[in-house]
């Protein structure tokens, strides 16, 4: 009898436009516009504009609309998590991935073979995102952004503690926070709130818009203020999410020598802090680290692992040395080490 995972290759194909499900005639996170797209989450390398019909969580659709407006898709279909639906004989079901608000894994089941496309995911507790759910399957498609054993994200509390220590050392200096507008920014705010910081936090354009959408979707971020509407405020010692040049151009008089802060899993390795020079590099990531990646594979326990972007080689080697089949899946548009991490 054929292995179920082997069978998957016959109906799930890697094409130039991305992962394509033949019997269902749809793509998962297509790299360019298609007729029908299932989207795991709203980051730009997974959710692109111009698709005709888009199936995604309601949060992902909200972020796509915020970002792309009308180009988000002609037909936006919000999908309820955990509720299966059938597309051309393929059973599709979305489960939370824990990466950012609204991020999902997508289970595809066809002729008894279960494949989970997990998109990007993490296992850490994140107050702004629903927790990852283990979904048993035959084929688990996983990212491997931090797929090397030297990546182990420290507890987020310790990193926030460092930030608080720097603030205490320099109470007058503004904290200039650099964080991706969708996900990282809101997670940092939520962690700052959790650590007891309840003062207003200032946000630049896109970061403010995304955070407002988070609040509308029920995630409490406390008192946030739009930087644009705070021209008269004294930002000495304040926490501001905005590019450095914007901050200095608009508030140069009150903001002297700001403390630049970045947050990324890449900061774990010194030689590889390619988020640019910052005074306070925090090791905080929205992706799984190596212990979580390997733990997840064991818990999901698939017959076969397909590894997408990141350090595929180490992940595949780890699987194979534990008698689990694994292969690299080169998806267009997701190679290389992305800006976020």
């Amino acid at each position, binding site marked *: 009898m054929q292995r179920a995972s082997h069978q998957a290759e016959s109906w799930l194909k890697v094409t130039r436009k991305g992962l394509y499900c033949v019997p269902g005639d749809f793509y998962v996170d297509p790299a360019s516009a298609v007729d029908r797209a299932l989207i795991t989450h709203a980051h730009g390398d997974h959710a692109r504009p111009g698709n005709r019909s888009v199936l995604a969580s309601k949060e992902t659709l909200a972020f796509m609309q915020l970002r792309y407006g009308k180009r988000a898709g002609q037909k936006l279909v919000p999908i309820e998590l955990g509720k299966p639906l059938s597309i051309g004989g393929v059973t599709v079901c979305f489960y939370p991935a824990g990466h950012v608000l609204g991020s999902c894994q997508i289970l595809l089941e066809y002729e008894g073979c279960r494949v989970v496309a997990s998109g990007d995911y993490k296992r850490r507790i994140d107050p702004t995102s629903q927790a990852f759910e283990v979904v048993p399957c035959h084929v688990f498609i996983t990212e491997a952004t931090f797929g090397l054993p030297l990546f182990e994200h420290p507890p987020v509390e310790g990193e926030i503690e460092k930030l608080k220590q720097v603030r205490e050392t320099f109470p007058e200096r503004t904290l200039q926070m650099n964080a991706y507008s969708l996900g990282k920014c809101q997670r940092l705010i939520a962690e700052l709130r959790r650590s007891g910081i309840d003062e207003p936090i200032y946000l630049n354009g896109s970061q403010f818009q995304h955070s407002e959408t988070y609040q509308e979707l029920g995630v409490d971020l406390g008192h946030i203020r739009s930087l644009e509407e705070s021209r008269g405020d004294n930002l000495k010692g304040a926490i501001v999410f905005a590019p450095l040049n914007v901050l200095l151009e608009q508030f140069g008089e009150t903001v002297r020598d700001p403390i*630049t802060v970045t947050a990324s899993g890449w900061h774990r390795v*010194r030689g590889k802090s390619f988020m640019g*020079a910052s*005074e306070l590099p925090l090791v905080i990531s929205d992706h799984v680290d190596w212990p979580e990646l390997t733990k997840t594979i064991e818990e999901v326990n698939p017959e076969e692992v397909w590894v997408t972007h990141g350090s595929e080689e180490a992940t595949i080697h780890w699987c194979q040395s534990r008698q689990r089949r694994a292969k690299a899946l080169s998806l267009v548009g997701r190679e290389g080490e992305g800006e976020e991490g």
Partner: protein
Amino acid sequence: MKGLTFLLDGLSNAPTDEAKQGYLKNFLKKTSGADRGYGLAIAVSELNMPTVKAAALKGSLLDRLDPKLFELSHGFAGDLSETIALLWPAPAIKELRIAEVIERLKIAKKQDLQTVLEDILNCQEASERRMLLKLMTAGKKAFLPGSLAKSALASWSKVDLTEIEEVWATLTPPYKELFDWLEGRVSKPNTIGRAIFKSPLSTIRLDEQGPNSLSPEVHAVGWSWEGLRVQLSSFGDEVKLFSEIGEDITAAFPDIVDQADFHGIVEGVLQVVKDGVVLPSEMLQQRVGRRPTTKKLLESHPALFRVDDAQNLEDRALNGLTFRQRREALEKWFRPRTNWDLSSLIDWRTIDDLDKLREESTTMKGVDGLILKRWEGKYIKDEEWLFWLNPPFTTTLVLLYGEKRPGSSQFSELTLGARGEEAEGGASILPVGKVSCRVEADEQKAVNQWIEANTVERFGPVRSVAQGLWFEVSFSSVQKASRRKAGLVLDNLEVRRVLWEEPNEVLVSVKELTSLLN
């Protein structure tokens, strides 16, 4: 160790000297005892850590880790000690005190060192492991210049900086006597019989027009030697050579230090001089940078100490004496030693004489102008020496690269170029110097915008730009720089003016600049 990691990370990443001092002061406030002293010593690179080879630890790690995963990790991180530090499984993480770690490593016998280190690594978090392995494998590195550390100590303790500078070189980590004194528990550490550093007088640079109200009755004049101003301190059995800011450079200049058969503090300028010819300052830098020095370097780059003043001779303090009295004492005391010379004074009568002397100095190798000291000036705070330096050269250069300093949004660091060899399709432009652009805020803004608009390529914080923005600059001299394409670099480069339009004259060539080497 958490506090130390926080300190060293802060010192490594802080954008300004002020911020670096802030991190140190915070550390001084939050730690105490030997932890504080050792932390300070590590920050200024004054602690001799035992060393290990990262490769030796690799074997021990591979007992517990798949070799292929190790190789892939190493390939990604690039650095062996960092790879080992990050991969090291630490089963029993707990907070270790800085002093405990240092002392355990220090008393370990050579054959036990690795085991002791592994025990420590087993208790540490990744960032602590990385820091410790770096300190033990990478050679010494100062996270903060000693001079900044001393002024941070002064501002933290409210004790006068000159007093701290004076005792600093007599202390060893973990500086118990220093902190006991700074915190008022004991009096100032005794420095009798110790080679101490005493702050030199401050100096003032006269503008190009030079002095207008000087007279030979008031001012003594000597050549201003281009080189490194130093202080040689010799007391008891101890001899030390300090730079102007109190950095101990004894190990770099045994050829000077070994001649110190006296007690006292004498000052002067170091140069590299071979067969009577002063060699480029680049060669002096090589001497300063190599500690301890090598026999080969001593032969190829012989140093000369041009003595010009003294604060103490044969255990007699001269600070209260006038320059006239000190000079007399110095001349009486001085006897020629190998590599030592007494810098002479020059007779002069009128301002015109001075003008001619300064003019003459432009043709002398290793001289950059004149130094003027008040005959009646004592060697005490507030007395100043005057420098009347040769007017700088001026020329126009073209912008090649703009760079943002960490934490800044301005392209303030500019690399400027001159015309290289003529070739088919025109001449190439070669970089000849880097300059911090210090112009008015509005003009800097315009420079920023120009760089943004004319960027050709981006390399992190650096942008290469299309040729089209010129700078009128001044520089004091041309230095040979064999590693650079142009073969030279301009010293003390300063921007005088931004030229928004192409200048009429042809861009200066590397060849023309090379001719200024002599």
